[in-house]
């Protein structure tokens, strides 16, 4: 009886705001309703390639998965570098052999004294000049190899070309814009040591990206494919950045 005399409390139905995909305006998957709209899954969750790779912190590695202590100029604060590749170290073999041959050439002066008509001081400076030229050749080749890198982040691919001391080109494309990825391994050494090219067609300003002579090209292509699929999933599930 007493209960019936109590004033009835008004009840309000709380309508939860349904989060919507900003691109398609479809409701976001219930699983991701409580996550911020720009949340990202850990990469190991969707990438088989990176799940199997251990983090690499060697700055001279030519295939560095989940590299630490590496960043690039236009990197977003929440953009994570997943893979860094540069040409396989075997491509350096040619200039290393050339360097060794050139470095040994002054020893030939003992047997073939072509500089004998020079006074001693000119002979000394000629040999020093020769080794300076070799040093310059080594430096240019090493820097061209070291700074010519391809970076795959969870948002973009970046191609840093440093073809010579006077030529530098940096291009990037969003994973969204990638249309096709293919890899190829060619030649005796390529097949033996497993290095080759990864060709990436994009809808971005630069239509084609080419990761040249990189180690494990099919693994790189597979990772980019996994990232493309994840981008698609992000769009469908509404986890759009």
């Amino acid at each position, binding site marked *: 009886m007493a209960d019936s005399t109590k004033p009835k409390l008004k009840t309000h139905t709380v309508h939860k705001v349904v989060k919507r995909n900003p691109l398609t305006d479809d409701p976001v998957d219930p699983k991701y309703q409580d996550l911020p709209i720009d949340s990202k899954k850990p990469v190991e969750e969707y990438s088989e390639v990176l799940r199997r790779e251990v983090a690499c912190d060697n700055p001279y590695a030519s295939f560095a998965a989940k590299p630490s202590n*590496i*960043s690039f*100029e236009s990197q977003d604060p929440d953009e994570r570098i997943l893979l860094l590749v540069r040409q396989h170290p075997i491509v350096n073999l040619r200039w290393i052999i050339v360097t060794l041959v050139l470095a040994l050439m002054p020893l030939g002066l003992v047997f073939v004294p072509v500089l004998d008509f020079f006074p001693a001081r*000119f002979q000394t400076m000629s040999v020093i*000049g020769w080794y*300076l030229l070799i040093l310059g050749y080594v430096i240019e080749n090493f*820097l061209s190899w070291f*700074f010519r890198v391809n970076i795959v982040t969870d948002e973009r691919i970046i191609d840093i070309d440093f073809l010579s001391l006077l030529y*530098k080109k940096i291009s990037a494309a969003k994973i969204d814009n990638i249309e096709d990825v293919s890899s190829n391994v060619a030649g005796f050494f390529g097949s033996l040591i497993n290095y080759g090219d990864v060709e990436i067609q994009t809808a971005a300003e630069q239509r084609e990206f080419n990761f040249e002579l990189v180690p494990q090209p099919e693994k790189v292509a597979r990772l980019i494919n996994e990232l493309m699929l994840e981008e698609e999933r992000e769009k469908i599930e509404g986890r759009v950045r």
Partner: protein
Amino acid sequence: MNSDGSINDFLMQLFNLQSDVNLFWAVMKILFLVAFFLYVLFSIVVVRQVFMMTQTFKTRAEGGLKIFAIVHLIFAVGVFMAAFLIL
């Protein structure tokens, strides 16, 4: 030294020079200095590029590369100075 003389003679005949036997070696010194100066310019470009590239692409190796580029430049300047003094 005989060969020095014959080259000087050849040069003098070639350019119809009357005297100054040391002219050939003076020209050689200038050529050497120009070559070493060009190398100094090259090492300046190396330093500039290493600093620019390490800004574009930062790695743990950047400190070592910068030091190497600067030491290389100092070495190139040292060789140029040595050539200037020795030759």
